[in-house]
């Protein structure tokens, strides 16, 4: 477990920075709700067309609080993709970056197997992502208690963060796969970010326009529309399974490539 420990130690600074960033963003967005949320509420109540649109788009949403609607629009819709940059940066740093810097050569000259190196680095990432989701949830609970007087669906929010965690797991697998393909950090970073952004835009575009939904289903973001629970009131455990499978398959592919890869700094 040494590589796992070293990876966590190396990431301490970044973990603190990202945690602080997430807490700040969550708190900032929620702190705006008492002011902006009231405006939205009066606008929606006065405009039957908008109310009708919300009813059409998400019939069950109408029965929910305006705070849920606020969180759906302003936070949950992009939390996954924003935090999704963490696994990308991490994976390209510890694989292609370390290869480029020559530190991976030094590591693999020690009595550790390649499999162990990759698995322990991946495990460290999964723990870090879990911590980031917990920080996100804790910040949301704290900020809501501080600024919001309405009823909040804390249990459903917890599920949304869990669903986001599985999305991050899938993105972590994809990032490791991309990072093992290339020997230099920048191209690997570009490839990973490209893959994730293209699939996010594809999902948003297709599902928003309501066309080629079969294609939208091929992106991980389809299974991580965390607001689904707020629209339908149902928990989709199957989505989490799909995301876990995507992450596992891509990580397994990364392992196969890494085992066969020539390590030349």
């Amino acid at each position, binding site marked *: 477990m040494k590589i796992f420990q*070293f990876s966590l130690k190396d990431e301490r600074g970044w973990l603190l920075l990202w945690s602080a960033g997430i807490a700040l963003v969550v708190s900032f967005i929620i702190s705006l709700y008492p002011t902006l949320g009231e405006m939205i509420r009066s606008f929606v109540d006065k405009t039957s067309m908008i109310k009708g649109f919300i009813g059409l788009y998400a019939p069950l949403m109408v029965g929910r609080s305006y705070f849920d609607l606020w969180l759906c629009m302003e936070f949950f819709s992009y939390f996954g993709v924003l935090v999704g940059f963490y696994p990308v940066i991490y994976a390209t740093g510890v694989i292609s970056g370390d290869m480029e810097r020559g530190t*991976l*050569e*030094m590591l693999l*000259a020690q*009595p*550790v*197997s390649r499999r162990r190196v990759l698995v322990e680095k991946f495990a460290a990432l999964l723990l870090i992502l879990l911590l980031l989701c917990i920080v996100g949830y804790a910040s949301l609970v704290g900020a809501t208690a501080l600024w919001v007087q309405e009823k909040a669906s804390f249990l459903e929010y917890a599920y949304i963060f869990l669903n986001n965690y599985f999305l991050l797991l899938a993105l972590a697998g994809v990032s490791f796969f991309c990072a093992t393909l290339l020997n230099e950090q920048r191209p690997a970073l570009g490839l990973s970010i490209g893959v994730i952004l293209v699939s996010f835009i594809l999902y948003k575009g297709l599902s928003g326009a309501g066309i080629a939904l079969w294609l939208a289903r091929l992106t991980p973001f389809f299974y991580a529309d965390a607001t689904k629970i707020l629209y339908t009131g149902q928990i989709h455990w199957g989505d989490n399974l799909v995301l876990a499978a995507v992450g596992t398959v891509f990580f397994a592919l990364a392992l196969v490539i890494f085992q066969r890869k*020539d390590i030349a700094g």
Partner: protein
Amino acid sequence: MEDLDLRVEKGEVFGFLGPNGAGKTTTIRLLLGLIRPTRGQAIIFGTPIDSGSSSLRRHLGYLPGDLGLPSHLTGGEFLARMAALRGGEPGRKAEQLSRRLDLDLSRKIKGLSHGTRQKLGIVQALMHEARLLILDEPSSGLDPLAQQVFYELIQEEREQGRTVFLSSHLLNEVERTCVRVGVIREGRLVVIEAIQELRKKRVKWAEVELTREVDPDTFRVPGVRSIQQEGKKLRLALEGHYQEVLQVLARSPIGDLTIRDASLEEIFLEYYAEDKDRQP
């Protein structure tokens, strides 16, 4: 790499000599299982090497040619991590080595000079007391004092029965530390020879500036392999015995005299020429 066939005996200090880009680092990476050969195999302690030979690497100490160190750590933290991967701690040997190489382990690697990083790499490779040391261009960037300490360390490792495989492009370094040497050029092993034999073949150049013209045949004595003349300037290739040529030089009207070792490239050219001559 092509047709590379060499065997290093237990307890031997073997020098792997070649110019930059000859294939020394590639060979070493093959030995460590970092890259895979398209055909053939490397065997260490009777075990074929592949990327999964992690337990075998417990017996290896390695210093890479392109030394990559985690810049955010101190030297001490780096050594502790490397030792921890072998289930231990840096121990007394690391302390001794650091002291002898005048290495401050409390400083961040980020702020270390190239030479100091190299010292850290050497400590890391030697501290495990591994049975086999694989050192790629080990004295690169070391100051003369640290080089001297490094040669002493290699001598001590040899006395303790460790096997050392050392690559270099510096003939002097290999001469000082190794028993046998393999010369590689353009991915092919040109020759394997005992250092004693290599010394015999080694050419020195005497560049003589005369105060007046002298018949170059005066210098055709045993030990002079070839003579080139340009007016009052003579270039003598010396080989083996120097006694007679020194006597001739002492009698000659010499304005200036320089005697230097043939460069590695010149020796390679000699081997290469011989190699080509042998081909049908």
